[in-house]
């Protein structure tokens, strides 16, 4: 009974409350509809905005791609040029040109100069013209060939045309401290011989080289092997097999095939951080056929040239340095001298020596230097058919020079020679004003 009345009452309460809320539901529904419509509108608006944004994104992406296409791809770092061999030319070889030109005057006449040889040593005279001289414009080309070879060429261009003075490869991949050079190159004999004339400290070559190897030194076709052992101090050992075409020492017709051989050694120590000595013996030997002994003669036989070189350098800073350099050469020759006019032949033995000592002092962009040259210092044998010939006084020369180097690429040099090499008592007083300029790739300097 009690349960019935409670449930009825509950139903009644429910009915009353639902009736009371009946009108309210309708209004709420319409409100709901309104909000749904509004939300629909905002969704539409938002979709519009999203669409616009999408379009904008597409545009910017396109622009970015276009921009990226305009920009070249940055090269990977490992492809970056290294400065080792100069980098401005990656595919072309490095090229440089050195102009070597000078003005010359002497107290002797042009005729006297042409005939001014060194009797008993060489019949080569002086080729310089009074006035303006163009030694050469020397073209250098160099570059690595591949990971195994570097290639070098020196092509001096003179008024007579171009000449292939040097053209050689150098190996870079041989083990055990070995290196092979092959082609046509300046021999490693001695000190000054392997330097280019524009790198010399004086305009002209020392008398000893002029007498024993000619005014340009020994440049030959052949092959060179050097060995640099890993010792506590620098020691370079070298050997060469050469064709033997040097006009004075050998001669291209002396023998078919290679007929000149060289051995040399160089040792070097740093005495202090700023001072270094470099020295070593050299020997060069081969078959000879030359017309350089005297005019109207031909000499056939063998020649051996011994050399001893010494260099001391002191360089405390870039603005100051001192170099002392000296070489002693000794030449032995044995064979027959033919008089090409009288057609007589006599045995000739020559044992002669030569020496020079030079010193250069540099302060800032200025360099001053002095050189003393002598031939027949200890030995002057010219034994023709068993008799030692006397050609007169000992040949010697003293030189002084002053240089201004505006930069490392330009050099202006004034040089005076007091030359007593003709053995006739006459002095050749020579004056040179030399200009050396280099353009193009920066070549590395020899020590």
């Amino acid at each position, binding site marked *: 009974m009690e349960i019935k009345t409670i449930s009825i009452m509950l139903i009644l309460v429910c009915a009353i409350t639902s009736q009371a809320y009946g009108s309210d539901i309708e209004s709420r529904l319409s409100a709901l509809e309104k909000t749904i419509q509004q939300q629909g509108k905002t969704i539409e608006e938002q979709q519009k905005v999203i669409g616009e944004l999408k379009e904008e994104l597409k545009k910017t992406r396109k622009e970015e791609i276009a921009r990226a296409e305009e920009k070249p791809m940055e090269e990977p770092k490992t492809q970056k040029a290294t400065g080792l061999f100069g980098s401005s030319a990656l595919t072309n070889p490095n090229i440089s040109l050195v102009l070597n030109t000078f003005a010359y005057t002497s107290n002797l006449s042009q005729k006297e100069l042409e005939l001014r040889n060194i009797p008993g040593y060489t019949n080569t005279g002086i080729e310089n013209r009074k006035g303006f001289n163009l030694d050469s414009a020397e073209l250098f080309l160099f570059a690595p060939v591949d990971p195994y070879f570097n290639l070098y060429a020196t092509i001096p261009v003179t008024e007579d045309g171009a000449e292939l003075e040097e053209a050689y490869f150098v190996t870079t991949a041989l083990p055990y401290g070995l290196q092979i050079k092959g082609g046509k190159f300046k021999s490693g004999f001695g000190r000054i011989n392997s330097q280019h004339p524009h790198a010399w400290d004086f305009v002209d070559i020392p008398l000893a080289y002029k007498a024993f190897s000619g005014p340009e030194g020994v440049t030959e076709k052949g092959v060179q092997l050097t060995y*640099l052992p890993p010792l506590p101090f620098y020691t370079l050992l070298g050997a060469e097999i050469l064709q033997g075409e040097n006009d004075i020492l050998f001669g291209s017709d002396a023998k078919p095939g290679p007929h000149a051989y060289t051995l040399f050694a160089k040792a070097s120590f740093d005495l202090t951080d700023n001072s270094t000595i470099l020295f070593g013996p050299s020997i060069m030997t081969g078959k000879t056929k030359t017309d350089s002994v005297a005019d109207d003669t031909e000499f056939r036989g063998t020649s051996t040239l011994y050399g001893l070189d010494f260099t001391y350098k002191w360089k405390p800073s870039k603005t100051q340095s001192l170099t002392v350099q000296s070489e002693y050469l000794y030449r032995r020759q044995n064979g027959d001298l033919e008089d090409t006019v009288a057609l007589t032949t006599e045995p000739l033995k020559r044992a002669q020596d030569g020496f020079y000592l030079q010193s250069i002092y540099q302060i800032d962009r200025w360099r001053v230097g002095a050189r003393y040259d002598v031939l027949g210092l200890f030995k002057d044998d010219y034994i023709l058919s068993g008799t030692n010939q006397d050609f007169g006084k000992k040949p010697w020369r003293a030189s002084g020079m002053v240089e201004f180097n505006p930069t490392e690429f330009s050099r202006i040099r004034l040089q005076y020679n007091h030359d007593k090499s003709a053995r006739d008592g006459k002095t050749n007083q020579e004056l040179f004003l030399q200009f050396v300029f280099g353009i193009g790739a920066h070549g590395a300097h020899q020590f």
Partner: protein
Amino acid sequence: MKKIILLLLINMCLSTAAFAEVKVVTTLPWIGSIAREIGKDRLDITTLIKPNQDPHFAEAKPSMILAARKADIFMYNGLDLEIGYLPRIIESSNNPKIQPGKRGNLDCSQFIESIEKPSSVDRSMGDVHPLGNPHYHLSSKNILKVAEGISAALSGIDPGNTSYYNSNLQSFKDDLNEKLKQWTKKSLKGRRYVTNHKYFEYLARELGFQIIGYIEPKPGIPPSAGHIEELIEMMKKTKPDAILTTAYSGKKEADLLSLKTGVKVKVLPHDVGASDSARDWLTLMDTIIRTLE
């Protein structure tokens, strides 16, 4: 007798073991200093250019060629700075390991972006480097990259010690970043200086100071009287904070300028070892920044 021979043999073995460390040859002292940070005592380092030498104008001394002969790895500054002697040292070394293109040939400039790269250059402009200013070592940004490069290169030729090199690299980086906080705190921003040579351009960019004039009219060209006069006029007007010069460039011109303008001269070490306090790269930077302040 046998005992003596045996002892000698043992001795030889021991000495070869001691020489098993990697042989590093560097041109400039700072490169040696970074290599030392990475490899510590596991490297045998030879530096060819002395701190008092001008790195532009060294000569290929036979002793340098000999050092290169024995090198496992040859590290150099690059950007043509060593062009006058480096190619000859490398070629004459007869050492295939350090030839261009080999692992043992490390051009440190490959890790950095050079500045002041001229769009065209000829030598009438003086000793301008076509690849950009080669004095990039006075910059922490650059040194971090070079240190990473050196560490990678050492790991390449000595893989057994890779983790050793890496952990040393990390501690060097930490040291450097710690120092960098001190350096950037110093207020060098806006300072203006006159210098001898283009040595401090990278540092100027990093620390925000300015180089407003050069004693050299063009890189590598000594000043004329006319140029000095112009410089004096300019300095009287602009009143720079100091005249900077390096130990190897000398103080002659700087002192003259100082006398005429009253601006004081500051001699900075340009490389590790150029002053007593510049013992390694970090202390080099310390010394320079302390002196600039």
